[in-house]
């Protein structure tokens, strides 16, 4: 056990705890925060492994941007809170699969790399990384740029609200308080102000929407 080992164990425990919280938390925002802790912990792991450039990239991209994006997503989607709403029924299955996988993989890893040690870790300098990116890996790098651009455009197109589309979600958002409407089973009642008059002659009683 060197000093690095101790630091790694501490950071690793923090990371693992964050990961567990991420997938078990009952509150969405807590889950996102736990994810941010996990990602920051992974940045710490990178630091321990002498990949400090990568650690900073991890901070900027994951903690600074992705975690914030997730928080945005959670705050904008108004999901209900609580274990039943967040978890599906196959928790046991998930536990079995992941637990089994962990046992198998960790056994294999210990058997294969149990005695490998890296004691003279010297992370590459930023100049080495720069040269590697723009000389050896320039083609994948450019491809990645194209991918990011495409993702940017795609995300905007997907998430963009068309003209006149605004406010439509209000119709289908149900507030589940008190007695349900009579025609609940037929689908969401089309009781939109102004729309109701057009519905009456049709006489379909609210089955038209959706």
């Amino acid at each position, binding site marked *: 056990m060197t000093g690095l080992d101790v630091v790694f164990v501490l950071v690793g425990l923090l990371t693992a705890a964050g990961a567990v919280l991420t997938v078990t938390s009952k509150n969405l925002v807590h889950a996102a925060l736990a994810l941010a802790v996990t990602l920051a912990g992974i940045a710490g792991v990178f630091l321990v492994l002498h990949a400090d450039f990568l650690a900073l*990239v991890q901070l900027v991209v994951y903690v600074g941007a*992705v975690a914030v994006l*997730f928080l945005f997503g959670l705050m904008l989607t108004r*999901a209900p809170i609580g274990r039943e709403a967040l978890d599906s029924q196959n928790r046991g299955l998930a536990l079995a699969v992941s637990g089994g996988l962990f046992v198998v993989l960790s056994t294999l890893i210990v058997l294969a790399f149990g005695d490998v040690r890296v004691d003279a870790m010297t992370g590459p300098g930023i100049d080495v990384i720069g040269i590697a990116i723009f000389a050896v890996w320039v083609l*994948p790098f450019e491809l990645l740029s194209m991918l*990011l651009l495409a993702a940017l455009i795609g995300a905007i197109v*997907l998430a963009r609200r068309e003209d006149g589309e605004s406010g439509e979600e209000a119709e289908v958002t149900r507030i589940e308080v008190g007695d349900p409407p009579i025609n609940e089973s037929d689908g969401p009642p089309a009781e939109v102000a102004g729309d109701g008059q057009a519905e009456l002659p049709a006489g379909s009683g609210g089955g038209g929407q959706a």
Partner: protein
Amino acid sequence: MSLIGPLLLATFLFCVGIYGIIARRNAVLVLMSVELMLNAVNINLVAFQNVLFPGEEAVSGLMFALFIIGVAAAEVGVGLAIVFNMFRNRATVNVDDVDLMRW
């Protein structure tokens, strides 16, 4: 330091990610679990970079990790956009409820 630590941590994170993907219903949480798995892979890549190219100018492990981070960012962007779209159209972000091929 020992290599086994980072590898075990990576395995653990990966399995936690799998658990999350299977057990969670909320699409955003599923995306988070995917991120966990991708990061687990990154830890592996960086760890092996130190084993395979110590003190050399070859940085393939770091490059892979960098690219994964980039791809993951793109994935989150598009994934969240899809989730927003789903929420707008279906008023839900539960992956169980989105089982129609068309609507």
